[in-house]
């Protein structure tokens, strides 16, 4: 009861809320007291192979039954309202899953109808979503003849054909060339911009960094860390780097002035160029004035950000 109330409170700004979710396959805990709040927007679900990403998605879809704990999707419980949830969810699986004898347009229309669209609605809508994902005349060919990129596009098209409010994308850029990856990420961004909640599972962290607003990192069936992407990457807490160039006297004069005003953490001097790391939570105006006053040239000024890969590796090491 307590868990339910807490979930109801938390679900106001969340799409999916799970509280102490336990899913066991024999003696293995695929999800081990998995507690997570998936907010609206584009959310990255990251984790090594076997971490429990697919199990979580299948539990949300009601394909896998949980042993204990609570889970709700837009306030609905997949154990009781699996069909209603699946109507509001679109799923793009990781692996090949296309009906190879069907053409792209027929397949998308077929799954549109299975998702509850009438024949009259499904055919024009499937053309519409195939236009959206960028599949041209190839849509009339059997999907068995498609390249990996085309298959990914059709998989995305079948997931959005019935206009779901929530999308689960499992490795959407898997096997795609760099251009195809960029286009897929752009599509995800566009779908996300139309007030959809998208849960993207991927191990290509650069892709996740580009497109996600929120990150959930899981390992061994547990949530390791979760939070907004910006907050995750801004681990420096005001730490910035400045590169300045000038005569040695001017450089040391600038460094002294800097030390007098800010907390300088490190300095490196290479051939008349100095890189200084210090804490500045304010704006850069006074700093530039100091540089001008000391007679040094500012070549670069940037915050200390870490990549998602750093966050991921650090999280995994902490767990280990």
């Amino acid at each position, binding site marked *: 009861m307590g868990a339910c109330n807490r979930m109801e409170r938390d679900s106001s700004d969340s799409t999916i809320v799970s509280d102490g979710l336990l899913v066991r396959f024999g003696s293995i805990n695929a999800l081990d007291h998995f507690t997570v709040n998936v907010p609206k927007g584009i959310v990255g679900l990251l984790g090594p192979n076997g971490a429990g990403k697919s199990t979580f998605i299948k539990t949300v879809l009601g394909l896998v039954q949980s042993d204990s704990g609570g889970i709700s999707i837009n306030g609905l419980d997949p154990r009781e309202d699996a069909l209603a949830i699946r109507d509001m*969810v679109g799923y793009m699986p990781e692996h*090949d*899953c296309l*009906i190879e004898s069907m053409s792209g347009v027929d397949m998308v229309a077929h*799954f549109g109808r*299975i998702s509850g*669209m009438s024949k009259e609605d499904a055919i024009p809508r499937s053309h519409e979503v195939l236009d959206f994902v960028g599949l041209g005349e190839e849509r009339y060919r059997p999907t068995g003849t498609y390249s990996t990129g085309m298959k990914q596009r059709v998989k995305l098209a079948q997931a*959005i054909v019935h206009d779901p409010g929530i999308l689960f994308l499992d490795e959407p850029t898997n096997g795609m060339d760099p251009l195809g990856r960029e286009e897929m990420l752009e599509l995800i961004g*566009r779908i996300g911009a139309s007030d959809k909640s998208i849960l993207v599972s991927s191990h290509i962290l650069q892709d996740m960094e580009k497109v996600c607003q929120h990150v959930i990192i899981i390992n061994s069936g547990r949530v390791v860390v979760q939070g907004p992407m910006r907050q995750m990457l801004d681990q420096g807490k005001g730490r910035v780097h400045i590169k300045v160039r000038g005569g040695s006297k001017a450089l040391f004069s600038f460094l002294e002035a800097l030390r007098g005003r800010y907390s300088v953490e490190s300095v490196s001097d290479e051939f008349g160029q100095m890189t200084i790391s210090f804490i500045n939570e304010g704006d850069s105006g006074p700093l530039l004035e100091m540089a001008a006053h000391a007679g040094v040239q500012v070549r670069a000024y940037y915050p200390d950000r870490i990549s998602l890969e750093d966050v991921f590796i650090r999280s995994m090491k902490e767990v280990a």
Partner: protein
Amino acid sequence: MGIDPIGYKPWNGRRTEHNRRFLVIAENIVWERFRSKPFLVLFILGAILVHVFPLIFYSIMPHSELEADLMSGYMGDGLFLIFNITLVSLICADLISEDFRSNSIVLYLSKALQPGRYLLGKWLGAMVVLCLFTLVPPMLVATAITATQDGSDYLGSLAVLGRTFLAGAWTALLLVPVGLMMSALTSKRTYAGVGAFMFLFILTIIAGVLGTFSSDWQLLSPIAVLEHTYDFLFGLDVSNVNSVLLVPMVIMLTVPPMWIVYQRILRKGVGK
């Protein structure tokens, strides 16, 4: 390829009811089968060999009414039954195996479609296609015989016509579960097709061998089961059949295969 700068458009249509969506699967199977050339060739060949000749022959031959033993004999004919077994193998071979192989089962089960409804859609599709061979032509033959009868007992002929309908549907009902089971046990359509044919055929051979010891063993044969149930459906004498064994055999050919298919679908749904 490439992306045109078009935005995502929502869809605001009305959804169909959950419990009617299996019909989409069934409808798709019917269209797919009749787009398949090997199936069409076999279907047409079978229709000519099995149904067209009896239709012409029985209609021309003088007769006073449509008789139950004539229809039972016609539907229990060896050629008809062999074509039934061949067709059920061909129809069911890729119905589930192909979804397992291509992993499209995951897409089906991620939609608002329960595993049972998915199976119902596959079963119904196979039933409709097979009934087009086992039910519609015998009904046409029976109708033609009734239309050309000399006697005035049309009511009696109509009763046999109704029994023919039941026998046609029953043929599909008995054979489809085995075809679906073989399709669910493998992810290769060839294995499924050959497996279904061999399962039904080998049981018939074993029944033939063991039948020399006791006639009860004959009931191991699906063909014998069909023949005896035709006699029952047409109201003929079945006193020589061990009905205590016939009923379990009918159950064995229908219930466990469908249960196996359902369990296989459930397991695939969770990724096993």
